[in-house]
């Protein structure tokens, strides 16, 4: 099949503003990834195309992009799910809400700054036991979903509240906080809840569910945010 790949291009060394470039790619297999198409352009048509990617199978979190107006990982978006018939167009642009540096590459630093603000690390200052901290399978299951996060930013940059106000910590940071708040071994839940109850914390979430749709790891992001809101309302985790 044939695909017209429309890419939002911008090179700060040449271009005053971003523009759309179109590349026609032949002999595309329905199971090709959008990343394969981008590689085809980069490797055989125009080497100046810039994008982040590494593992190419949805684990490293490098290649979140806006593909046909929805945030996805380019390595998990398959042509057959985007194009029906023998010929179609796929549109690829950088994720929204973060400054574009070049082509599909955005400045991730504001995203990671929000991430760092929620104490995204295990805290337990008691002397560790000789063996492991014991934790039942049920306690472990309580935060399993949010351990899957790969920090790709697909959720945060699909969130209208984040687009409107970049000071909002965003869904990804809340997911990371959730992973520790509900871990029975961790002792800093209250400190994280205090951070997230502030003006730029969970209350900027309007329950729009874009984040849940966007998550390439199928994390129930909106639900995790709701659980953090509930914990704040109740004054802590049970």
């Amino acid at each position: 099949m044939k695909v017209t790949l429309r890419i939002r291009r911008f090179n700060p060394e040449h271009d005053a503003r971003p523009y759309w470039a179109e590349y026609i790619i032949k002999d595309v297999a329905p199971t090709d990834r959008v990343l394969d198409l981008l590689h085809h352009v980069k490797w055989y048509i125009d080497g100046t195309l810039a994008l982040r990617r590494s593992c190419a199978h949805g684990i490293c979190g490098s290649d979140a992009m806006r593909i046909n107006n929805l945030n996805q990982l380019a390595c998990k978006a398959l042509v057959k799910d985007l194009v029906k018939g023998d010929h179609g167009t796929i549109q690829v642009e950088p994720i929204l809400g973060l400054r574009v540096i070049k082509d599909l590459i955005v400045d991730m630093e504001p995203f990671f700054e929000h991430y760092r603000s929620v104490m995204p690390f295990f805290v337990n200052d008691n002397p560790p036991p000789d063996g492991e901290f014991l934790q039942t399978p049920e306690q472990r299951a309580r935060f399993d979903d949010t351990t899957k996060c790969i920090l790709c930013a697909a959720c945060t940059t699909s969130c209208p509240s984040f687009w409107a106000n970049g000071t909002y910590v965003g869904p990804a940071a809340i997911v990371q906080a959730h992973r520790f708040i509900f871990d029975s071994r961790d002792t800093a839940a209250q400190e994280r809840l205090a951070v997230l109850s502030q003006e730029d914390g969970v209350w900027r979430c309007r329950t729009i569910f874009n984040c849940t749709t966007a998550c390439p790891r199928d994390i129930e992001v909106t639900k995790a945010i709701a659980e953090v809101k509930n914990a704040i309302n109740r004054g802590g985790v049970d």
Partner: protein
Amino acid sequence: MKTHQFDALIVGAGGAGLMAALYASQEQRIKVAVVSKLYPTRSHTGAAQGGIGAALGSEEEDRWEWHAFDTVKGSDYLADQDAVEVMCREAVDVVLELEHMGLPFDRTPEGKIAQRRFGGHTRNHGEKPVRRACHAADRTGHMILQTLYQQCIKNQVHFFDEFQVLDLILSEGRVAGIVAVDIATGEVHVFHTKAVLFATGGWGKLWQITSNAHACTGDGTAIVFRRGVPLEDMEFFQFHPTGIRGMGILITEGVRGEGGVLINNEGERFMERYAPTIKDLASRDVISRAIYLEIRDGRGIDGKNYVYLDVRPETVNKHLAEAGETRRIDRAYIESKLPDILDFCRTYLGIDPVEEPMPIQPTAHYAMGGIPTNVDAEVVIDAQKTPLPGLYAAGECACVSVHGANRLGTNSLVDLVVFGRRGGRAMAEYARNAEFPPLPENPAAEALAELEQLRNADGGTRVAELREAMQDMMMTCVGVFRDAACIDSAIEKVRELRAIYDTDLHVDDQGKVFNQDLLDAWELGRMLDLAEATAVSALCREESRGAHSREDFPKRDDANWLKHTLVFRKPDGRLEIDFRPVVITNYQPKERVY
């Protein structure tokens, strides 16, 4: 050009680099930084799936000595046994340390760290499979990487993200720093240091079908090779038996650990013929060869180049019953233990492994060889194991050697954390006591000249064309099976590709900002160096051992080849081979049967 000064510098931010960074930065009297070409959480440690081996005995009796024996046997007796003992003993402690850092391992009903079976890991020297792989579903590497990065944030480790290392600076016979380019700006930086630890990972991208990330191009290994450090055991590169057909994406050995079996076109569980005792849980080299032989004999699925991996509950339960085990599994169990595997198969193949078997083929996976080090991660530069002061390496880029001719599943993660920790401690101790060596004049001159030459390369051959030619050649001639004629042709070919690289390369992007075209070209140069080193080492070793299967020398030959290969690159570019004896402590080499 910017110049920085740090007492100790770590290059690479996967499991080994982050562990080293945590330990080195505990020494308050020195300044430590990490340089990584990727944002740290993008590192390939995150793709490790099935587990990290440690004889915790959560589920059944286990001893670290059994783990050591399995590792030595798995290595086809090429691993240094003193180093293996260090690794397997410390594995127990380091896994508990990871748990204390918050790593969310799966749990047993009693609340302990859950463990599963894995290839080559046995009870009491090969009696039967043992549950040794500590795991967090099938994303154990992801959890290790996240946990270590989280701890680095907590401890305020200094990172230079998206900086590509270009060169190692030596001065007065010791390390004086590195040269790196800030990918976002194109600006070249010099890092003046006393100690450098390379934790730059593997080089699976030398092969066409690989489980490795695009970033796995062996940069650090190639850099030290060009600076005169030999590379050890480069002929041993592991092909993981179960990659997704055509794509190479890893399907964890944990699938077989949970009871999955390999099936040929006749519906036969063929590993019963090749490894009668532990069958589908034999070492990876054994299984990859078996798959190739099945395919060669026409028993690939529909006569093609793949077989099936079957983890459907009815199949698993049938074999569990045959084996006299009481355990049974169901869909919910597979969903909870192998969620990412199910996701990969549903996404890329459109099949559900609970309903259908997975089409798989061997995939280039792991470098057993690399930068030679001792157990403190100090890089050693000759057969006498003389250290190069200030230079360290840990993780896949290094060769301690704990994996010998074939690595056991789960031992890469053990290697990362054990030797990352040891390296971090050792480099901090060295850096605290050493003086800064003087920087040579224009320390970045060579790196800058090479970048400028590549930036302006306007020949007729694209980087991708050359890279694909190299990958095809390595897959065909330096893959699971090898022989002299084919390896010879590979060496000739890689030298032809090198000549084209030097004279006829084309780079489109002449810019500064995120010039990935330029860095792709630079990486290809490193890969060509490693391809040549691999092929030359493979031609030299006239025996079959572990992952190195020579069809013209099908037997292991302990009389002549129970030794490590060291390949040196001379200043004029010629490669020379030397050898180093294997360290044997408790386990005399014997025939390897599973």
